[in-house]
């Protein structure tokens, strides 16, 4: 993984001192809250319902054992002993005190971590596939480019007060685990007809109040031109976006308003100029230099045989162990979705224990997935049993990756100032309802995603079943959406109809799943059945209770 050189280290240190001065000035009143808010957001600090919330950057979801230990330390020293992994691969602490945050950032800096631009109207954490470098489903590891983009976007002087947040992902569409089409901008690594590797750039995707899938901006950008192209997109966005209505200021709105063709034209103009100026060229040598940091470990010559084990182990390998590009190796998903637990939460004990696990098995890194789980990218198959046993002790071996109980869920009204409804209890109840593993396997791949408000941090638009919490006259209600997907077959879920009360929503979800089991053919997934038969049959089943009551 990337290692800071003296420049990166000094940069983060200076940024910490800059924020320390800002906090001083806020506490003394030299800065009022209106002035301070964008400044603290650009250091990842929100003010939530009970407390502040600090979002720490985990660039492209990659962490080392040392970093895990520091996160555990921060959880203990400054917070309440746990953190929460997010859908953008970051980590959130829910109880820091404002006066402690500069010290937290100083501690993070000692392990090459920070909270720079994890919130605010600026370029956010650059995300990538959690299987990067380990999967055989990529043209190349997206993380070197993600690291280059991270540096290019860090305190970029022109784009530090954008109209709204700007999220970038890097990936491949061979199997998109990074939700490329839902990003403000996405860089897809591709090969052209001549077999050269370059980048296809998309822009204008987004969740929130008005979800959109990204439009194609450029079919092929040469490697050395990529930063110039990204800069061109940001420049057009910064210049031309609305500033009069906070709900209409994402780039998705701009592109929808002027049309993708016009957007491409404006971007092309800027691109040609920036290219001609030559200041943002990315030399092959620099790309290679950064790529060297991400070289995979030396893979040993090992038997590719999958070790056997007891029923628990077999269940776990069925869903949580994935094919690795090197024989004898596997990718393992560590589920942070124990039945009845809070999705995505991780205790300081678990963080420390995972660090030990990495060390014990010679693993240099762990990844944060987009689905609020963790991933061990390079696991020797022969180590799987021992690792599973340890994960089981830690409560991290739930065998549900990709199944119905592997729910994505935002913090919701239990934590978040923006929320209309609680989301976590709904996730817990659904998981408890479907806890039976045989039943989960019968249902198969089913991605349920829950958001507590229209800001959609739970990605409900991209759920096979999406659930949106709303406030209906002071009462928590839940709307269902079906048929969303964040993968390479991206689609936006369709709203079913009127919402369900909190005592009805789990039953409604169960009826929807029942409809699937009745209608499916040829082992198709829930998503495929929905796409084949449409909303009607699911809607009828979901509202069954109401229909009966009406008669």
């Amino acid at each position, binding site marked *: 993984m990337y290692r800071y050189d003296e*420049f990166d280290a000094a940069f983060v240190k200076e940024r910490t001192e800059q924020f320390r001065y800002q906090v001083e000035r806020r506490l003394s009143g030299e800065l009022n809250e209106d002035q301070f808010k964008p400044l603290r957001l650009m250091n990842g600090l929100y003010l939530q319902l009970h407390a502040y919330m600090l979002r720490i950057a985990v660039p492209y979801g990659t962490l080392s054992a040392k970093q895990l230990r520091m996160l555990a330390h921060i959880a203990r020293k400054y917070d309440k002993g746990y953190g929460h992994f997010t859908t953008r691969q970051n980590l959130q602490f829910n109880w820091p005190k404002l006066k402690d945050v500069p010290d937290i950032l100083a501690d993070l800096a000692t392990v090459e971590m920070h909270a720079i631009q994890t919130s605010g109207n600026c370029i956010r954490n650059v995300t990538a596939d959690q299987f990067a470098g380990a999967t055989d489903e990529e043209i190349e590891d997206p993380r070197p480019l993600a690291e280059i983009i991270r540096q*290019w976007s860090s305190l970029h*002087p*022109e*784009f*530090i*007060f*954008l109209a709204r947040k700007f999220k970038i992902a890097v990936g491949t569409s061979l199997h998109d685990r990074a939700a490329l089409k839902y990003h403000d901008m996405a860089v897809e690594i591709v090969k052209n007809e001549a077999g050269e590797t370059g980048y296809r750039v998309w822009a204008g995707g987004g969740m929130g109040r008005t979800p959109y899938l990204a439009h194609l901006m450029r079919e092929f950008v040469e490697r050395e031109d990529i930063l110039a192209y990204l800069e061109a997109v940001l420049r057009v966005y910064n210049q031309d976006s609305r500033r009069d209505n906070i709900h209409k200021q994402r780039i998705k709105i701009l592109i929808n308003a002027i049309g993708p063709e016009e957007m491409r034209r404006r971007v092309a103009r800027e691109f040609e100029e920036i290219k001609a100026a030559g200041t943002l060229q990315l030399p092959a040598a620099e790309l290679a230099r950064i790529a060297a940091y991400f070289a995979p470990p030396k893979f040993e010559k090992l038997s590719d045989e999958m070790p056997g084990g007891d029923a628990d182990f077999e269940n776990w390998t069925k869903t949580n162990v994935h094919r690795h590009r090197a024989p004898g190796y596997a990718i393992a998903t560590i589920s942070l979705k124990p039945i009845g637990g809070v999705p995505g939460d991780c205790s300081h004990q678990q963080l420390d224990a995972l660090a030990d696990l990495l060390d014990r098995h010679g693993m240099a890194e762990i990844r944060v997935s987009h689905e609020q789980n963790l991933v061990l990218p390079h696991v020797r198959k022969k180590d799987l049993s021992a690792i599973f046993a340890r994960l089981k002790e830690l409560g991290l071996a739930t065998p549900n990756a990709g199944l119905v109980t592997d729910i994505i869920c935002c913090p919701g009204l239990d934590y978040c100032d923006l929320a209309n409804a609680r989301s976590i209890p709904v996730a817990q109840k659904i998981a408890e309802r479907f806890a039976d593993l045989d039943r989960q396997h019968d249902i198969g791949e089913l991605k349920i995603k829950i958001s507590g408000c229209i800001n959609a941090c739970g990605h409900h638009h991209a759920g096979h079943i999406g659930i949106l919490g709303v406030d209906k006259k002071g009462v928590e209600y839940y709307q269902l959406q079906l048929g969303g997907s964040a993968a390479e077959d991206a689609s936006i879920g369709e709203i079913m109809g009127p919402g369900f009360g909190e005592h009805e929503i789990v039953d409604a979800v169960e009826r929807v799943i029942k409809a699937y089991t009745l209608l499916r053919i040829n082992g198709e997934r829930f998503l495929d059945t929905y796409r084949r038969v449409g909303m009607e049959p699911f809607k009828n089943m979901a509202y069954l209770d109401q229909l009966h009551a009406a008669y």
Partner: protein
Amino acid sequence: MPLIKNGTYAEDGFSVVADDAALPPGGAIVSLARFKKERETLLARNAPLGVWLKSDESPEALGEDVQRLSLVVLEFPKFRDGRAFSWARMLRTRLGFTGEIRATGDFLYDQLAYMTRVGFDAFEVSDKITPELLQRALKEMSLVYQPSAEGRKTIGQLRAGA
């Protein structure tokens, strides 16, 4: 309001002129609307000319005339409106403007470094920002990843030993 130019307090040789007011003998700052309307007259004056751009007014509207201006004023109606960062950048790069780019309106001490890096060289300030504070602001982040208008070396260039 005090003017800080090139790092120190400076006399303002310009006055802002309303759209319907008579032009003063010395340096004058007019709105873009007035500049478009009275372009010939304004450019023919034998006195420095500046144009005031609102945050939704692109300097592109000035075209090649920008070379004949001494000053462009970029307004921040609200410090969160960051369009002027791109306008300053456009003035320095696409339009090749070498005159004074002056910031006016609502901006923070915390934005001064970014503003300098995109090409601002003058700031109309309240008493909350002084030349000393400007110097401090410019030193907060000694290293930068992106190219700057003042030609400061980037981290990339430092790495390459440039």
